């Protein structure tokens, strides 16, 4: 069945595309959490990234400015979170929740005039190869640059955390901010940087949705993906590679169950819709059940407020 082979290739390609925002947001949040900061504002930062990316595209007609702008907007909104939690020592959970609510509200307000405007086509790479090679073509080629970046990101993150000095410092701060501070590391600065980086990645994830995946602005278009990204980080036990696996499973089953619904399987629709969530959790729990590894990867100080003795 030659038709099936190429169909499966296209299917896998679309699964990859749908998991990009999860990979981006979760990889960003992973770094933030590894430094000991729990930012529940992922959804809020994503939606702000989505609207500012789309708005900048409409205003400037320049996709590069739109992408960079969306990341900057993520940085700015996460700066609010950083200032509140790191400088004013507010509770991470409450501040993160507030950030999400704020982001959703603000994006709806900013986006009022952008509803219904058609998006611009985002350039894709190697589009000729996509058509010419069966099966592998649609998997490997014909994607936006953001997708390639997203799939490289977990490996880069892994390398950063395990092999570089800065990664070591981030892990050290997440493990014990007091010890790190006594070693002369500027804990607050490290945490600020991690928060801002997380914000930038969430902004980019939002822009991917509004500029590339479904090029238009719809209110609340992130539709809970930020929360899924957050859950992925935890269930992947703070391992970047497992985040990638989890995001692919989630994206995969989301797409598959849509096809199953379309074909008309005799399974209740509600169960099919719940399937991605269920399967992602089950798989991640199964692949990360080594309690020793969990202990080593978990940032011990996660969500705890740190202040310096004077």
């Amino acid at each position, binding site marked *: 069945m030659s038709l099936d082979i190429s169909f499966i290739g296209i299917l896998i390609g679309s699964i990859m595309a749908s998991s990009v925002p999860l990979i981006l947001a979760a990889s960003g949040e992973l770094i933030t959490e590894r430094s000991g900061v729990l930012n529940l504002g992922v959804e809020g930062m994503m939606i702000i990234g989505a609207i500012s990316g789309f708005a900048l595209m409409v205003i400037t007609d320049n996709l590069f400015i739109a992408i960079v702008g969306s990341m900057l907007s993520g940085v700015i909104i996460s700066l609010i979170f950083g200032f509140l939690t790191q400088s004013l020592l507010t509770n991470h959970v409450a501040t993160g929740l507030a950030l999400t609510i704020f982001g959703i509200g603000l994006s709806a307000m900013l986006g009022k005039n952008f509803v219904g405007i058609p998006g611009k086509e985002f350039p894709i790479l190697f589009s000729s190869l996509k058509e010419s090679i069966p099966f592998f073509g649609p998997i490997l080629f014909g994607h936006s640059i953001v997708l390639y970046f997203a799939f490289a990101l977990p490996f880069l993150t892994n390398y950063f955390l395990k092999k570089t000095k800065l990664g070591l410092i981030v892990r050290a701060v997440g493990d014990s901010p007091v010890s790190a501070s006594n070693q002369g590391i500027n804990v607050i600065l490290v945490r600020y940087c991690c928060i801002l980086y997380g914000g930038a990645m969430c902004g980019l994830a939002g822009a991917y949705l509004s500029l590339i995946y479904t090029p238009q602005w719809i209110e609340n278009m992130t539709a809970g993906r930020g929360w899924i990204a957050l859950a992925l980080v935890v269930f992947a036990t703070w391992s970047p590679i497992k985040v990638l696996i989890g995001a692919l499973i989630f994206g995969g089953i989301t797409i598959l169950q849509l096809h199953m619904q379309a074909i008309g399987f005799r399974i209740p629709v509600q169960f099919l819709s719940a399937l991605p969530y269920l399967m992602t959790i089950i798989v991640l729990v199964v692949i990360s059940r080594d309690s020793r590894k969990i202990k080593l*990867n978990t940032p011990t100080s996660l969500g705890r407020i740190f202040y310096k003795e*004077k």
Partner: protein
Amino acid sequence: MATDLRISNISKIYPGCIANDNVSLQFKSGKIYALLGENGAGKSTLVKILSGVVSPDNGEVFLNEKNLKLSSPLDAKKNKIGMVFQHFNLFETLSVFENLSIDATEDNESLRVRVNEILKKYNFSIDLDVPVLNLSAGQKQKVEIIRCLLRSPKVLIMDEPTSVLTEQETEELFISLKKFCDEGILIIYITHKLKEVLSLCDEVAVMRKGKVVSVSQTQNERVETLANKMVGQKLAKIKKKINISKNKDEIFKVKHLNFYSDDPFETNLVNLNFSVKKGECLGIAGISGNGQNELFQILSGEIITPDTSIIFRNKEIAKLNPKQRREYLMAFSPEDRISQAAVPELKIYENVALNNFKSSNFFEKGLVNEKKIKEHSKKILSDFSVNTDNVELKSQFLSGGNLQKLILGRELITAPELLICYNPTWGLDVGAINYIHETLIKINDQEKSTILISTDTEELLKLSDRIAVIYKGKLSKIMPSEEVTPEKLGLLMGGGSID
């Protein structure tokens, strides 16, 4: 080159407490200096100032007549002041090598070479690539020391280094410290253990309530003189009268206590049988890690083992949980005060309420009777001379000694028939130890019984009527304490046999 460290008129005031009051001291390399004082005497604040973690309100620090600005830990490092804190400053989830490389300025290969040189030179055996959380306390301390040595320090400050070490590890530490001293490193040794001062240090400064009260050569001092300087008053010598009456009823009887665990960090217990008489103190000696933890948990009901028979006041209680056992008038004081006996984040009165009984009426119709609990807590604080009367204080702000008094008070206010305690004076200063010992003796005088599981042989010989030794999960013959000598105990604790 000789090192000369001078502290001049250092003061540090915290709200409600003068931690350091005009402290001036002078240290010269080639000697080991002791800084002695009870918990809360201001030693830790002083070393935090020297290591740049906190800045003083007043005063200056001079190293070789150079005025040091110590406003961050980096400044102390730059000025070659190394510091090993009592609570380790290590990253538990990172490997040993990662811990060492985090503030290194060189590349990993040359760092590894240097670390291996140090390991070899001082005979340390540590695997560099395991996470720190897998190490023993003694090994963690060595990692801290290596971290200091890597920066070739002029001054090395050790803050209560032996509080987490076994005797063997302590000896090793002393040998290393003497080596460092011979190599010209100035060593400041902070402690509240008098014997360590006498066996290790050349000169001793005693602190009390934030002030330096005496500086002297250790060869002119004895345990008693140091203790009196430290506490500020003469300590009463306590000695227990041995219970002569041998025909008293057995109140507590354990038969066929077996425990088997798959966890390699737990010790299996093999067929333990013993009994405790009314008004008696049964001491259980042993080097830590020989099954004391497991034994305590089984006796308190945290672990239920099958086929074990525990008879208490003629009732079988082997299947009861800790709360039910308490209802039968047993009481427990675990080794780990902070995580097992009390919840550090809770206020004093809330910690008291944790140990509630049907009879205590702390809770009525599902509601907390705060007034009653607070009254009860106030009584404990005053009866057991805890150094505060504020029941709203969070327990984590109590010093070790005061927390132990609170825990004992909470356990004893119900007048239990049997108290089981595990290392009750672990990490406490002389004054608090004395108080706890007096309290434990008082319990026996009132015809109540105690089981004292302890790693401190001196304490066991002082308090117990009969002593047994636990070694690798097996219990030795139970001996009347007048027949036991420290040498005998040491032999049994090391796995030897007598007869």
